[in-house]
C-alpha cells in the first residue's frame, strides 16, 4: 500500500519533473559537457574532450579579463543594492508620512520607470540624458556655461552613469515593496514609542527596520540576483556594436556574452557560464541561510 502511494506520488510529479529536466537540468548538464571539450569554429564537428583546460584558461589567465569582470560585478552588485535599499527605504517612508497629499499620484508616477521596457529606458537615457549633443545632462551644463561632458567615455563616470540608470529603473520595485511592508506595521508601536519619548530616528531604527526586515529579505535577495546578472544597462549604454563609448567596463555576464557570441569558442564560454552558475549557486545558498536566520 505504502509502495503504491509512493509510485502515485512519483507519477503525479513526473510531468513537472520531465519539464524541469528538459528545460533546466539538461541545458546545465550539456553546458558542463561542452565546457570540457574544445568545441569551437575550427572544431565544429570534430571536437574532443580536453579536461579542465577551459576552466584553467578562464580562471588563471589574468589578461582574459575574467577576474576583473568578477570584481566589477561584485562592486556593481554591492553598491547598487546599498543605494537601492537605503534610497527606497527613505522614499517609501516619505510616501507614508502622515498628512502627505496626493500620495497615490506620487506612487503611480514612481512606478513609471519600472513599467517601461528596459530596452526603451536604456536607449532613452543614452540619447536623452547622456548624449553629448542632445542629452539633457549636457544641455543643462551648456546652459550654465560649462563644457559638454562625455559621461560614458571613462570607466568611473560610465560606472556611475550606469548605476544611476539602474537605480532609476529598479527603485520603483523596491519602494513598492517597502511601502507594502510598512502597511503591515502596527501603528500602536509608534504611538507607544512616542509616549515613551522616542524621536524619529529612534522609531525608524527600533520599530520600522526590525519590522520590515523579514518581509523585505526575499525582495532584496531577488533584486540582488537581478543586479548581479545585469546585462542590458552596461551593454546598451557602453558596448553596443558600432557605438562603443570608450569605457571598458565588463561584468561577468557581458564578459561571457563577448566570449560566447563573438569568439565562437563554445568550450571556453561554457566553462565561463559554469563558473557563473556555481557562483550564483554559492551566493544563493549564502543568502538563503541568511534568510532562514532572519525568519
Amino acid at each position, binding site marked *: 500500500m505504502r509502495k*503504491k502511494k509512493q*509510485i*502515485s506520488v512519483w*507519477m*503525479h510529479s*513526473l*510531468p513537472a*519533473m*520531465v*519539464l524541469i529536466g*528538459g528545460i533546466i537540468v539538461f541545458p546545465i548538464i550539456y553546458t558542463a559537457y561542452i565546457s570540457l571539450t574544445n568545441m*569551437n*569554429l*575550427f572544431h*565544429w*564537428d570534430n571536437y574532443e574532450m580536453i579536461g579542465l583546460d577551459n576552466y584553467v*584558461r578562464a580562471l588563471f589567465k589574468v*589578461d*582574459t579579463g575574467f577576474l576583473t569582470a568578477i570584481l566589477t560585478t561584485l562592486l556593481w552588485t554591492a553598491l547598487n543594492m546599498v543605494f537601492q535599499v537605503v534610497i527606497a527605504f527613505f522614499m517609501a517612508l516619505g510616501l507614508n508620512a502622515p498628512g502627505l497629499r496626493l500620495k497615490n499620484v506620487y506612487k503611480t508616477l514612481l512606478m513609471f520607470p519600472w513599467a517601461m521596457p528596459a530596452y526603451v529606458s536604456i536607449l532613452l537615457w543614452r*540619447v536623452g540624458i547622456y*548624449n*553629448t*549633443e*542632445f542629452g539633457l545632462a549636457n544641455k543643462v551644463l*551648456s546652459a550654465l556655461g560649462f*563644457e*559638454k561632458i*562625455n559621461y560614458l*567615455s*571613462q570607466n568611473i563616470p560610465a560606472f556611475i552613469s550606469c548605476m544611476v540608470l539602474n537605480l532609476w529603473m529598479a527603485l520603483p520595485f523596491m519602494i513598492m515593496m517597502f511601502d507594502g511592508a510598512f502597511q503591515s506595521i502596527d501603528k500602536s508601536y509608534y504611538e507607544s514609542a512616542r509616549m515613551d519619548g522616542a524621536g524619529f530616528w529612534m522609531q525608524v531604527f527600533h520599530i520600522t527596520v526590525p519590522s520590515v526586515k523579514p518581509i523585505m529579505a526575499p525582495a532584496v535577495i531577488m533584486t540582488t540576483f537581478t543586479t548581479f546578472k545585469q546585462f542590458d544597462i552596461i551593454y546598451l549604454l557602453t558596448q553596443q*556594436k*558600432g*557605438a*562603443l*563609448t*570608450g*569605457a*571598458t567596463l565588463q561584468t561577468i555576464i557581458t564578459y561571457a556574452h*563577448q*566570449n560566447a557570441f*563573438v*569568439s*565562437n*569558442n563554445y568550450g*571556453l564560454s561554457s566553462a565561463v557560464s559554469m563558473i557563473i552558475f556555481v557562483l550564483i549557486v554559492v551566493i544563493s545558498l549564502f543568502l538563503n541561510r541568511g534568510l532562514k536566520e532572519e525568519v
Partner: protein
Amino acid sequence: MKRKIYGTLCGLLAVGMVAGCGTQGTASNAANGGNASGTAQDTAAEGEGTDAAEPEQNQAESQTITVWHDGDESIMQVIAEEVNKELEPENVTVAFEKKSGLTDQLQLYGNDEENGPDMYFYAHDSLGMFAEMGILAPITDFVSAEDEKDLLPMTIEAGTYQGTQYLLPVYYETLLFLYNQDLWEGEVPETTDELYVYMEEHTDTAAGTYAVVNQHSTAYNVAPFINGYGAYIIDENANPGLNTEEMIEAVTYNKQFAELMGEGDYDTCNTLFNEQKAAAIIGGPWLVSGIKEAGINYGIKSLSEFTLPNGKPLAPYSGVQGIGVLKHAGENKKDAVASVLKALGKENVGISLAKKSSCAPANEKSYEDAEVAADEMIMAMRATAETAQPMPNLPQMSVMWGPAESFLAAVNKSGEDVATAAETYQQAAVTAVEDMQ
C-alpha cells in the same frame, strides 16, 4: 481506480511533453532531385515570411532552390523576379526566405539537407566562418571563368576564401561622402588636409554645428584612413595589425578629424545631418532614404576622390552581398544550382537592382545601362570600387571588430595615447584570436 486513472493521465502527459522532440517524418525527395523547400518551410521556417510566392509545385517537372537571406526583402524580391524569369524555360524556381540571425541559423542547419536551405544570400565577411565549418561548396564547381568575366575583380576577391571562391557576388556597398548642397560652402575639397581646414573653419562644437560627421570610432568608418595608409586590422594570415606603424599613423590622423565630429555614434551622426546641423556625413547608401525623407538637397562624392597626405586615395571597406551554395545542394541539385548562379551573374539582375533598389551591381556591364549610368550614387560607388578593399572574410575578423573599435574609442573618446592604446588593444586582439581556438 481513481489513482490508476490519475497515474495513467500523468504518464501520458509526461510522454506528450517529450513527443515533440522526435524527428518529424518528411517527404524528402532529395533522391529524385526534388524540392527541399517544403520541409524547410514546414519546420525550421515556421513563422518566418517568404519573399517569393510559393510556386506551383509539380515536382516531376520543376525544381525549387531555397535561398535563406537576412537582408531587405524588397531587394530579394527584385532578384527573385529577374532570376525566375530567366530560369522559367529550365523549370527551376528560386524561393527566398528571410531568416533573422542567419549566421546562427546556418550554424544549426548548414549541414541539414532536410531542414536547411540549398543556398544562402549574405554579406561576404562571414564567408570564412562558413567555409571553416565545411558547409559550403566552391562556386567554381558550378560556374566557369567565362560566366564571371564581367564581375568586378574586387567583388570576386571578396567572395574568395583561402584561394577558393565560395560566393558569387551580386551587389556591393561602400561608404560615400554625402553633403548638404545648401549648407556646404564652395567646392568639396580634393584632399583630406583641405577637408580638415574646411572642418576647422566651419565647426562649432559648443553650438553643436559641424562641417562633417563620421562614426569616427567605428572601424568600418575609419577603414578609409586605415587602408589608405596601408595599415590593416587583420592580415591574410590572421595576424592583428593594431600596433603597426601605419595603423598608428592612420589613427593619429583620424583623431584630429574625430575632435571636430562630436560623439560619432550612428544615431547622433544621422540626426545631426538630417537636422541640418552637419553639412556632410560619411555614410553608406543605406542613409539615403532617410536623407531624402528629411528633405535635404544632397550631393554625393566618392571617397576615392579624396587624397591623403601620403598621396594615396581614401580606401573604404566594401561589403559584398552574394550567394553561396550549401555542400549538400551542390551534390544533389548541381544542375539547378548552376542555372541559378549563371542567371544571378547576368547584367540584367544588376540593372534591376540598381534601378529598383539603388544597389551597386557586381556585374560591370550593368553600368552601361543609360539609367544606371545617370545615377549619381551608384556611379559614386562604382568609382569607389577602384580603391575599396573588401572587408576581411577571415573568421578571425569577427573578434577583431571589438578590439579595433575599443582602440579607436580609447583614442578618440577617452583621450588615451595612440601608441599606448595600440599596444593594449593589439594584445587584446591577439588574445581574442587565440581564444577562438
